[in-house]
């Protein structure tokens, strides 16, 4: 990586801020209330960055982000819960193998579908479903075999270290699970028009919430306790963990968006037909953006689950799924820095200051004021509060305009310019 002034400045400021907050937390100057809010701000940044990738950069209006967030949260929480409360690695191994095998099943099915040319979408979807079911059953059976050895190996480590390892894998697995669900769900719905897609994803969020409400009876996960809420999750998410994940996500997104893949993703938002004419596989770009965005949502869910150590299906109510949407719209569609700033502003100002400063009756007014802001934003400033501002490090470097050198190239450019003026 080339270190220029902007890059260096960006990293110094970012890491400085993170270390400063960590020092303030360790010294006890920053109360746990504010620390939690900062963590939630970082988690919301990751969710919203994922949504911004789907909606802001790829142009797919998704309301399903909250559902994937819920999947990641519950999956990760279940893994660490089983490790700390039941003292075995059952959740870890089973989920690991299911995620891995389903991933392989996707890969193989994709190859098969590509070979069977002219397969209609419904048949392809049916093949995927069958493959996933088979892979999941095998994964559960294999995972059971591996529970005992894995538990032994992890138990031989110091308890704190093993917990951190389990936690890290759990969070990543939560993200992967969300990504795989999103891939399967995206197969039928990604081809729809934008607002149908929005409704289908909203439906997805509602389905997830209903399933979580009945997670103990219908899904058979006793420890999730359904609508009573899941307690006893270890509070492992520290400020450094969320900061680390946020940094990785920022680098990931920056590098993706600056690559040719990123430009392809953005071109789909700008004009699908033109992108297709340029040889871009529109369906593939949509899938990449959707799956990656959902992965980020699942990751953030895993982080969130270990902040308070408590999960309740009402947290994943579809009304709340508009929170990341509001953050993305306010931060600016297609702006990474705007999203992060808006997420922290949302957490600190709306959840923090206003709750402390304003009288108790404000809670009822909150959702009256939100939509009015949203309406005014849509009418007056559709580019977002920060107006597409981007830190120089994150700003996209566009290829330099083409400069003709030889006489022949010059005449060609003139000819093209004249032709385009004729429109």
């Amino acid at each position: 990586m080339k270190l220029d002034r902007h890059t260096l400045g960006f990293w110094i400021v970012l890491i400085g801020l993170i270390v400063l907050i960590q020092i303030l937390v360790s010294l006890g100057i920053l109360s746990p209330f504010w620390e939690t809010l900062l963590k939630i701000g970082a988690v919301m940044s990751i969710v919203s960055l994922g949504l911004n990738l789907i909606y802001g950069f790829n142009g797919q209006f998704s309301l399903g982000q909250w559902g994937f967030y819920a999947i990641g949260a519950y999956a990760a929480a279940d893994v660490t819960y089983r490790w700390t409360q039941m003292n075995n690695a059952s959740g870890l191994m089973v989920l690991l193998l299911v995620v891995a095998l389903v991933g392989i099943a996707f890969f193989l099915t994709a190859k098969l579908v590509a070979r069977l040319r002219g397969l209609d979408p419904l048949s392809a979807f049916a093949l995927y479903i069958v493959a996933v079911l088979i892979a999941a059953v095998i994964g559960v059976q294999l995972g059971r075999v591996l529970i005992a050895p894995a538990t032994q190996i992890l138990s031989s480590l110091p308890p704190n270290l093993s917990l951190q390892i389990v936690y890290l894998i759990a969070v990543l697995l939560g993200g992967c699970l969300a990504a795989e669900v999103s891939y399967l769900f995206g197969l039928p719905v990604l081809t729809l028009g934008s607002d149908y897609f929005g409704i289908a994803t909203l439906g997805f969020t509602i389905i997830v919430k209903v399933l979580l409400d009945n997670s103990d009876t219908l899904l058979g996960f006793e420890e999730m306790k359904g609508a009573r809420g899941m307690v006893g999750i270890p509070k492992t998410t520290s400020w450094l963990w969320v900061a680390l994940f946020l940094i990785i996500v920022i680098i990931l997104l920056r590098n993706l968006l600056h690559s040719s893949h990123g430009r392809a993703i953005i071109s789909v938002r700008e004009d699908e037909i033109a992108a297709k004419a340029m040889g871009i596989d529109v369906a593939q770009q949509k899938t990449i953006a959707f799956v990656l965005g959902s992965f980020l949502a699942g990751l953030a869910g895993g982080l969130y689950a270990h902040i308070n150590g408590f999960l309740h299906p009402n947290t994943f109510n579809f009304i709340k799924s508009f929170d990341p949407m509001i953050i993305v719209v306010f931060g600016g569609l297609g702006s990474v820095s705007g999203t992060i700033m808006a997420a922290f502003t949302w957490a600190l100002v709306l959840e923090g200051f206003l709750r402390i400063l304003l009288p108790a009756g404000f809670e009822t007014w909150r959702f009256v004021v939100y939509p009015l802001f949203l309406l005014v934003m849509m009418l007056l400033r559709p580019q977002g509060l920060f107006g597409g501002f981007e830190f120089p490090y994150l700003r996209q470097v566009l290829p330099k305009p083409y400069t003709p050198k030889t006489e022949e190239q010059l005449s060609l450019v003139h000819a093209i310019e004249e032709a385009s003026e004729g429109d």
Partner: protein
Amino acid sequence: MNNEQLTLLQRIIKGKWIGKGFLALLALAVIWWVGGKALQSPPLFFQQIINGIQLGFVYALIALGYTMVYGIVRLINFAHGDVFMFGAFVSFFSVSQFQLHLWPIKALPSLPPALGIVIGTLSVILLSMVSCAILAMTIERIAYKPLRDAPRISALITAIGVSFFLEYFGALPFVFTPNFITYKRPFDIVTWYIQGGIHRLEAGAEAPPGSVIFSNVLIIIIVVSILLLVGLNYIVRQTKIGKAMRATAYDKPTSRLMGINVDGVISTTFAIGASLAGAAGVLYATAYPQVVFWMGIIPGLKAFVAAVLGGIGSIPGAFVGALIMGQAEVLSAGYISTPMRDAVAFTILILVLLIRPTGIFGEPEREKA
């Protein structure tokens, strides 16, 4: 390549047999499940069907508003469910605060009491319809009209914002309060049961086991809905404004050139759709006598699913789709588990979008430049 040279695999691909087999399996599973339960207890099954019809007609009224608005401005009017809620609340206040349903008896004591109640109930419904129409026209004027040329998603986010605003403004303590409120019906309930003939069920009495019961609420819902549907069909098919609506839905710029006041037509469409939602709000509240500020969200979304299922933009489609949705909801609530009805509704949506995105009655959409 000749047809004879196609291998078995190619034939399977060409005939889309994998997808068809998958669907057939799914349909068989559903029939097996519902059929097994129905054979266990036929009266219970018929009871569910009747409840489903009652719900389906209410959904049909809401779905029509969605389908009409979507047909004309291509906007999923999220606030429609909250207009429905507003209609229910207007009727709640007009009945319990102002005793509007009693005015014929007070004003004309010589009227037969039955007729008086009918007129009173109809005027309650009419008041809700008119207030919902005014509300929807205001929303359209303030929130949607300035965004008519903006990207469709901006309008959709605005619609979500309007929906939130209506809900949480309603939740304020001095508006509708955030609590469940018991709804007072404008008429007394009369129940019948079917067991070898239709018998009147006396108040407070238990229906004999193994019988199917229904009440005058069901009859009122069906009669009012059918009257409104016929009226709507008349407006859309026979009147000048209906012709203008169809023209605007077909091609907006051209209809403007033909001298149609497009903004006026859009406004009227919102008003008609909202008045149907207002009537649906009253009927829903009489059937399930409770009102609360968020009551419009889930029925609104389900009615939208019904509109998509029937083919968005198609009036008979919305009606058929809503009846199917009503049955699906009641059967899944009765035979799987109550909260699962929401999940089933959206599973249907995803299946419809997968199999036939244009819906049952929808025509393939024209590709627009």
